[in-house]
């Protein structure tokens, strides 16, 4: 490519230095005294997160406190990140239940497919994001930890019509 010279036609007629600087100073002073600051003081103040926020998982329970999960295997199948580990089992009454149900929150991409595919409304992504840990292995949530979560869940669906009927 040939080297070309571009000569910019600058607006010399309107140019000024001192007056323009004073104008700029006035502008930045306006911002200096303006009480409108955009910073959110994080640990004390928090943004309201939307009803469709997809964060840390939560497993809902039945009235007797056991997980709603019937170990159908849909969520590990649909999971694009392959982060759900499910080992199904059958109890004395012949009901299927999860023997092992683990979600690796590090692998999870928070797509929310597990919640969408779940026929029992058991597994949910939650409206929650403060899930830092000191150890990598603590990011693998087992069933006890998933059921112990109390944060509100993502409203991918209309709460008035949970089964989509």
């Amino acid at each position, binding site marked *: 490519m040939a080297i070309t010279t571009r000569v910019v036609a600058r607006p010399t007629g309107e140019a000024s230095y001192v007056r323009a600087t004073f104008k700029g100073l006035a502008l*930045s002073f306006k*911002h*200096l005294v303006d009480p409108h600051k*955009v910073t959110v003081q994080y640990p004390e103040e928090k943004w309201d997160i939307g009803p469709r926020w997809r964060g840390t998982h939560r497993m809902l329970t039945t009235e007797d406190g056991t997980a709603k999960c019937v170990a159908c295997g849909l969520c590990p199948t649909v999971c694009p990140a392959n982060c759900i580990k499910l080992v199904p089992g059958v109890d004395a009454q012949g009901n299927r239940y999860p023997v092992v149900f683990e979600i690796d929150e590090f692998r999870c991409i928070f797509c929310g497919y597990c919640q969408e595919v779940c026929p029992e409304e058991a597994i949910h992504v939650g409206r929650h994001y403060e899930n830092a840990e000191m150890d990598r292995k603590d990011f693998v949530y087992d069933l006890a930890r998933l059921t112990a979560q109390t944060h509100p869940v993502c409203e991918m669906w209309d709460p008035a019509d949970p089964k989509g009927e």
Partner: protein
Amino acid sequence: MMHSLSFLLQVANPQLPPTMGMFVLMGLVKAGAAFGIYMLCVAYTTLAERRVAAWIQDRLGPNRVGPEGFLQPIADGIKNFMKEEALPDGASKALFIMAPAIAFVPAMLTWAVIPFASPLPVPGVGLVDMVVADLPVGFLFTLAISSLGVYGITIAGWSSNNKYALLGGLRASAQMISYEIAMGMSTVCVLLLAGNVNLNEVVAQQGAQGWNVLLLTLAFFMFAVAALAETNRVPFDLPEAESELIAGYHAEYSSMRYSMFPLAEYANVITSSSLMVTLFFGGWDIPFTTWDNLPPWTITKTLLTMALYVSKVMFFVFFFIWLRWTVPRFRYDQLMSLGWKVLLPMALVYITVVASLLLGLDAAGVARTGWAFRGAMLGMNVVFVVLVFWVLDRGRLISPAYSRVERERLARMRAVADRGDLLSGKGA
């Protein structure tokens, strides 16, 4: 007993200069106190810079360490001391280690000759000048020492053995030498008015005659621009220029050694502000009254004048910070042509006019403290301010790269450019 006591008290009359021994002692006390306060001010200027920057950008700034971030400078200091010091393999070791100190010391030395309050009568000691060293060559000393500051930066840039650092150091030396001249020239007018280079005398003159900023606004303007360039702050921060030179001269520095450079910059800001206040805003003088300029000196006077001096300096420190977060950086050619083609000729013309006016007024027998003298100076000042800020500061670009192109050459360049586009197939 009583007789000897009264004799001692007579010797130590608080309205008279102290004896030699007391003078040395008070000098040490003043130096120690001034050093401590100055370092504290430098530390807190860093906090002021960060918070003002944040407010201007609609943020909040550091407000977590202590109430409203008040302990932030201490936390920063501890952090910097704890960090690892990197010493580049290719660096010239002795100079590399020395450079931060060389950059820092001149700023502080300069401040030593600036008077910060009216003399303090100390019972049993005598009248103590509120200046660390009341040098008879005061102002010349500040010029001499502040031009040493460039060595720290240039040596830092060179000894790092890094291209960017070297470029930063070179830019710093070119810039500081260029603006040193404009700075010196702009203050010649002040010295013409004061008739003395002792800064205490300059303050006294302004107390009697009115602040120099009213009589010599243009000199103040030029001094402020040159001082900005001397402190290497935006819009003249080309030596660091993070967008082009990474961090310029201190690219290779880390830990407390790095930290010395920002500290030197803030020390320079405080010193430049103090100089502006002393030379143009009456120093510790309280305006609209001569009560504070005349003996008998009292502690109240000292405290009041010191408070006023501090608030004036704080305003200018704030102004430096305010300007930094307002204007963009100059290009290198603009910087050079502003210094050599605008400020220097302007200062020379200004000196000539001011000197002629002073000579004329003195020959006509106009008293320097009278209203006629002030009126004449003020009139000259208004003419200059209108001329420079309204007439000359219009329709001009400070840029040799632009202004040197003549019309025919421009046409030729455009023709070549078009042909280049055609050859590369873009013009079709």
